[in-house]
């Protein structure tokens, strides 16, 4: 990636973080930690790697992006709003009555969302179905599925990983946002899912493990996954919950869902007033 593109994507990631903080900040409370940890991946996918466009959000040939960790909805809504899937003003409606932007991703409410999620552990199975449909129809779209590390304690995730590996779905790329935290504490203290990369390899998945906040590393890994034939890919993203906003990440696992004051979000976003 040339320097100009890298700087563009890094700057875009910062924009998305600001929009996410503003969206949740205007409401006053929300799932900020796990939204911020996945922003860099979303930036690489939506602004560089994925074949998606707001002009045709239902294009049957588009790439699919399944946010299985549905509580990261606000990060995804920020990307979609910034790209023009819906008016950016809508971010002020998060979780308000009648909104199109609910806490958890809803494909029937938000333009650009490919799968409903929220009850954890279900998205990967759905992503596999999309990948199988692509194989049946001989389409060359890709399916990207984003799981949380805490989410991966759900048994269905492992049913699905086993099947994805055995079916050699090379049109499916799975990401695990490995921020190490869940509602009740550190994932390693509660029910560790490590060693993630070894488990992934044992499930017959092409496995990479990278710094999930390194834009260049993410792009390289996604390219490598896309170019890997006859194997489904899994990329472990080692991330920091609340990354990019010190007063969020410093809360540790307490930042899964937290209150945000108007002063905090306005200062971070550089918006003194509307």
């Amino acid at each position, binding site marked *: 990636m040339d320097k100009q593109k890298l700087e563009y994507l890094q700057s875009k990631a910062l924009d998305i973080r600001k929009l996410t903080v503003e969206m949740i900040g205007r409401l006053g409370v929300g799932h900020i930690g796990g939204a911020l940890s996945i922003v860099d991946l979303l930036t690489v996918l939506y602004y560089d790697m994925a074949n998606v466009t707001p002009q045709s959000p239902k294009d049957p040939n588009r790439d699919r992006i399944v946010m299985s960790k549905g509580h990261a909805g606000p990060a995804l809504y920020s990307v979609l709003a910034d790209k023009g899937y819906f008016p950016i003003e809508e971010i002020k409606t998060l979780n308000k009555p009648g909104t199109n932007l609910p806490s958890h991703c809803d494909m029937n409410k938000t333009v650009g969302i490919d*799968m409903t999620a929220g009850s954890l552990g279900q998205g990967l199975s759905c992503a596999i179905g999309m990948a199988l449909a692509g194989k049946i129809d001989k389409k060359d779209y890709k399916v990207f599925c984003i799981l949380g590390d805490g989410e991966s304690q759900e048994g269905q995730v492992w*049913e699905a990983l086993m099947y994805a590996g055995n079916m050699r779905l090379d049109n499916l790329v799975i990401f695990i946002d490995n921020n190490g935290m869940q509602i009740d504490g550190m994932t390693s203290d509660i029910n560790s899912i490590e060693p993630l990369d070894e488990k992934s390899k044992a499930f017959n998945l092409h496995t990479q493990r990278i710094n999930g906040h390194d834009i260049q590393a993410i792009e390289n890994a996604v390219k490598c996954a896309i170019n890997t034939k006859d194997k489904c890919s899994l990329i472990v993203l080692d991330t920091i919950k609340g990354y990019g906003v010190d007063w969020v990440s410093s809360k540790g696992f307490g930042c899964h869902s937290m209150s945000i004051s108007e002063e905090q979000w306005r200062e971070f976003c550089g918006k003194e007033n509307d």
Partner: protein
Amino acid sequence: MTDNMEMREIYCQSLIEEAKTNDKIVVVEADLMNCIKTGPFKKAYPDRFFNVGIAEANMIGVSAGLATCGKIPFCSSFGTFATRRCYDQIFISVAYSKQNVKIVGTDPGICAEINGGTHMPLEDMGIMRNIPHMLCVEPTDSAMLKALMPQIIAYDGAAYIRLQRKKAETVFDEKDTFDLFKAKTVSQGKDATIIASGIMVSKAIEASKTLKDMGYDVGVVNTFTWKPIDEKAIIDCAKNSGAIVVAENHNIRNGLFSAVAEVIVANCPVPMESVAVMDEFGEVGKMPYLAERFSLRAEDIVEKTLKAIKRK
């Protein structure tokens, strides 16, 4: 003729036949292909058949994902595992997400026979009809199943099909016509109406004959679609006969009795009696034993009908 065919044979044949002109139809199994006999579909359309192994939650999710891309997945398992084992996946990935997935649960109620209580779905229709907008159907025999399959495929929405796997008692013939959303009136009666589904339909007909010999004029209506239920047919039964008996191979709780009562209570209250499993778990045994054990015989319908008539 379909008379001598098992329900599962009709099911698979219908899918194969419809799939000739409908390339959206796909089949997703969870290691019961050899029980539900969808092997011929796999042979005919190997690219449109998937077996996820013993992983019902994944089966439902994979089906939902296929449906987002325009496919019409038919996924199946024993009724217990096709519903309560993966209820949240059905609720969220299929129903809440508005995906066109058809879920087939076999061996309803006491039809599970020697697989016993662990495999005996007496609550499947109850929990499935609790999911908003879920179509819930229990085809009665092979002729009806054959007629309904194209309608179920054409229905754009999530559906649960409660399916006897083996040979069902013949009630209808191929000349009969069926509308997925209309109850089938077998006979009309002035003294009471037995509203029945599944294996209880033939028993209801037998009971009505016994009652006729006793001097009572009792009708039989088959509400094979439990949801959305044919409200007009139920109201007509209540108005014309003044007493209702509901006969189902299911727990009384939230089953067909509940569905019919919801209509009756709101529109034209009349005495109602139930022939159903009375809030119990299933158990192992052959059908005659189980029918007696849970009071699901024709004579039980006769007894409850006389009781309903007496209450008029």
